[in-house]
């Protein structure tokens, strides 16, 4: 039982929190801009790399570097939107989707150019986990989950308590009615990048805390993050949180020796779990658990 919690459930919750942060952004961006943002994974990568010189070079703690990384990704997201997505705003969204694919490749190439192709870590060596009654949990895992919860609560307050947040939900509900109401679309779009980019940056840093940092970490997140967004119902940020947790936990639990003593599914096939859930959802209930849009 303890082994199950320590090595499968806790890592699943940690991974799920990271997926959730990415999926909220994908879902928000889809709700407002109506396209699947393929560069989202690479924005996560950017977050991990922005924090890197601060932690390794300047000796910041990774938690102090977190807001800087988030801000860096927000600025880059707004810049990318101005340069590449805004000129295509009135075109079919499939064109913007392909543009975002191009942005993903450019971002990754730029990151590799600046930081090199080698893998990095924030912190060398091994830290002993906290052990309570046989329950082993790494300190960084506690922080990743707590900070994710804090970010989600902050997002919730923003969306439900502020005028801009409500206008964002209104625009996602009905862009034509929002226009009649006098809501300034471009201002809301900029805020969408602030939220989506900021959460992607945080997800990237959390991912870097948990594994090695490579130029592909974000890209490899794209499939589970999209799966989480679809599972939750695309365009529904709250659904994306649930979707992220379900996918993260399902991926980790798939390697548990449910039958006999060998893993049910070899861990190398973990990402297939996300894919299978995504395909099953699209076939069986394309609107997702929280009744999002169907395309």
């Amino acid at each position: 039982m303890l082994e199950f919690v320590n090595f499968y459930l806790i890592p699943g919750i940690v991974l799920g929190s990271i997926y959730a942060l990415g999926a909220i952004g994908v879902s928000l961006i889809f709700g407002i801009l109506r396209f699947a943002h393929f560069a989202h994974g690479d924005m996560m990568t950017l977050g991990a790399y922005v924090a890197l010189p601060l932690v390794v070079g300047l000796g910041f703690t990774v938690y102090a570097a977190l807001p800087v990384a988030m801000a860096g990704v927000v600025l880059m997201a707004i810049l990318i939107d101005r340069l590449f997505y805004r000129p295509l705003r009135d075109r079919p969204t499939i064109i913007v989707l392909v543009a975002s694919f191009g942005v993903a490749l450019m971002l990754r190439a730029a990151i590799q150019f600046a930081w090199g192709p080698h893998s990095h870590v924030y912190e060398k060596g091994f830290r002993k986990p906290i052990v309570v009654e046989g329950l082993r949990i790494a300190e960084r895992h506690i922080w990743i989950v707590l900070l994710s919860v804090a970010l989600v609560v902050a997002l919730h307050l923003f969306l439900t308590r502020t005028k801009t947040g409500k206008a964002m939900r209104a625009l996602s509900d009905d862009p034509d009615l929002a226009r009649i109401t006098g809501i300034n679309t471009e201002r809301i779009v900029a805020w969408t990048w602030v939220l989506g980019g900021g959460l992607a940056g945080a997800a990237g840093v959390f991912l870097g805390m948990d594994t090695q940092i490579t130029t592909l970490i974000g890209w490899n997140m794209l499939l589970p993050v999209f799966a989480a967004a679809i599972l939750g119902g695309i365009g529904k940020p709250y659904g994306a949180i649930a979707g992220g947790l379900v996918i993260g936990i399902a991926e980790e639990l798939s390697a548990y020796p449910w039958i006999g003593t060998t893993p049910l599914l070899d861990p190398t096939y973990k990402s297939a779990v996300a894919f299978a859930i995504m395909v099953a959802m699209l076939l069986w209930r394309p609107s997702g658990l929280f009744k999002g849009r169907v395309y």
Partner: protein
Amino acid sequence: MTAALLRASGVYGGYGGADILNGVDLAVNGDEIVVIIGPNGAGKSTAMKAVFGLVRIREGAVAWDGRDITNLSPDRVARLGLAYVPQERNVFPNLTVHENLEMGAYIRSGDISEQLARVYEVFPPLRDKRRQAAGLLSGGQRQMVAMGRAMMLDPRLLLLDEPTAGLAPAFVEQIFERIVEINRAGIAILMVEQNARHALALADRGYVLVNGQNSFTDTGPNLLANREVAEAFLGG
């Protein structure tokens, strides 16, 4: 002729492609209820959308309070004191009733409690439902939210596109009563209605549009009494 609050003259236009409006004239004075009736496809809704900048005007002009607003964008028109309630998709379904009303006042800064109180006064059922998602309300209540949202800006003119379409008879009566009440508070009304008899009965003036052109213009009672209009457009 005195200067009307809203005047559209010789308006031609449509959604790209062939024109739907072929020289429509409309005028609304400051305290009137004006009703547009006509057969399906006559361009009634299109005329209203053209006033609000949602349909491209190719020729002709729209003046608001003596100022030219032809082809002004909808968000700019909304700032001038006109409010528009579309026939369908006129509430934000995932926002609560209260949030819908708040969005109505989006372009306004400062305190909106007075406006909110007035909307809840005109539409008492909304007060109890204010924490509910607007998409879960009945058709009649949704129409109340839509009209309430439009009233949040203290408009001088309310444009209503078929406010009673698809509503249960009990709600039709209620909505018409509210429209008269809103008008008595000093807000001019321009509405398109399928319920032509009922609407003309409370209209100061009415327009009959056919094929994007004015066919008859008169006071509400006179149009009701007009045999030609009655036979062609009011079902005999």
